[in-house]
């Protein structure tokens, strides 16, 4: 499996570290409920198919990436930096 890093180009998956599902958003700790925090920490959609996930390019540019990948085939559909997504200007 290779991931095409927006900064570094196509690189072997060994250069990256996996964190997990990119969709859960951390609730504001002081304002939220226990149930919402539980859902954020523990519950996952775990789809068989398209999955948006966070990878860290530790042996490259040190960027956090959001990779859209099919969990049934490992085919990668899109790679953006998490920074670009947070700013709303992802490709």
């Amino acid at each position, binding site marked *: *499996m290779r991931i095409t890093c927006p900064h570094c180009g196509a690189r*072997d*998956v*060994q250069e990256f570290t*996996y*964190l*997990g*599902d990119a969709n859960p958003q951390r609730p504001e700790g002081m304002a939220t409920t*226990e*149930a919402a925090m*539980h*859902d954020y*920490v*523990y*519950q*996952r*959609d*775990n*789809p*068989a198919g398209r*999955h948006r*996930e966070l990878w860290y390019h530790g042996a490259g540019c040190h960027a956090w990436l959001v990779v859209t*990948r099919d*969990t*049934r*085939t*490992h085919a990668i559909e899109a790679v953006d930096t998490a920074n670009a997504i947070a700013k709303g200007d992802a490709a």
Partner: protein
Amino acid sequence: MRYSIFSLAAQTLKGHRGWTPAWRDAAPKAEYDVLVIGGGGHGLATAYYLASQHGITNVAVIEKGYIGSGNVGRNTTIIRSNYLLPGNTPFYEWSLKLWEGLEQDINYNAMVSQRGVLNLYHSDPQRDAYARRGNAMRLAGVDAELLDREQVRAMVPFLNYRDGRFPIQGGLLQRRGGSVRHDAVAWGYARAADQRGVDIVQNCEVTGLTIEGGRITGVETTRGAIKARKVALAVAGNSSRLAGMAGMRLPIESHVLQAFVSEGVKPLIDNVVTYGAGHFYISQSDKGGLVFGGDIDGYNSYAQRGNLPVIEDVMESAMALWPGLGRIRMLRHWGGVMDMSMDGSPIIDHTPVQGLYLNAGWCYGGFKATPASGWCFAHLIARDEPHEVATAYRLDRFATGRLIDEKGAGAQPNLH
């Protein structure tokens, strides 16, 4: 037909033409008391113990492919009960006790071999940790022996004792651990369940769960609708998909775990040995192949196949522990989809849907748990209360903070 030396002798005289299929390939009936989804080791064991321990025989096991096509046929066949935490120790010890009597119970040769599981340690802190684990096991009535370097060398002299970075200093040995012929576990439970009236329905994929007023009433399948008073999920790898049909999200991610077997060689290694300076475990099958494995690949996957970096990592661990392995060729490797839970421990519990039961989250330790998983799941389904050795495996433990995290890795499934 009861299998014995006499049935074997009689069939030998008849040229082995009289053997009959070990179980019926049943067509689904319209309605069952209990429907077990998933024809793997855990599902088949559940059906068998429902029939043999609780007298519930109007049961079907439905399987999307053929029985044993999932993780019961994709593991490294190791059995052991060397767990540290109170929620785990009694459960896995009960499982090992069931393994010890399994073949007589189900009248099937599963080749249960208590050849000993040896976990190596390579540093003083690791020795302390293993001593603690061994003491916890002995306090719970489980066998454990702490070996020093020379005792380990006497058992497994061919390992690398000259490694300066990770010297083998000793090991924690559980003599009652060992290995089992994994396919035979599925086949043996299937046959024993079938003989007690359980229907085993293959090539029958569940496409939906029928829920009316918060209570399950049946399932939709590729072979039509089936009604059931109780439905039990034992579909590790696909638990999130099935639970999703009931509108539930689970504290589980699906990950791929690879395993490997070498070409067949003469007897080389008598025990199961695990490397303490990396994640690597090895034993030898009765056919002669060296069976070994390591870490999961580390990313969500339903693919039943992994990637090369883990293969390289496993081979590096193999060579570090046992340099002589470099002369042996790898024959094949495979991948299975694991239910990686958020604390590394399983779930055997009710769900919020009445009549729907969940058996999930086995991470990559489900094979050794097969008998006790079936035993405890059957108990839960039949009596609607958890079995005493499985009371900790609750679905709500993540909300209540009663996690069972053997590795202390936190809510990061790829680290367990």
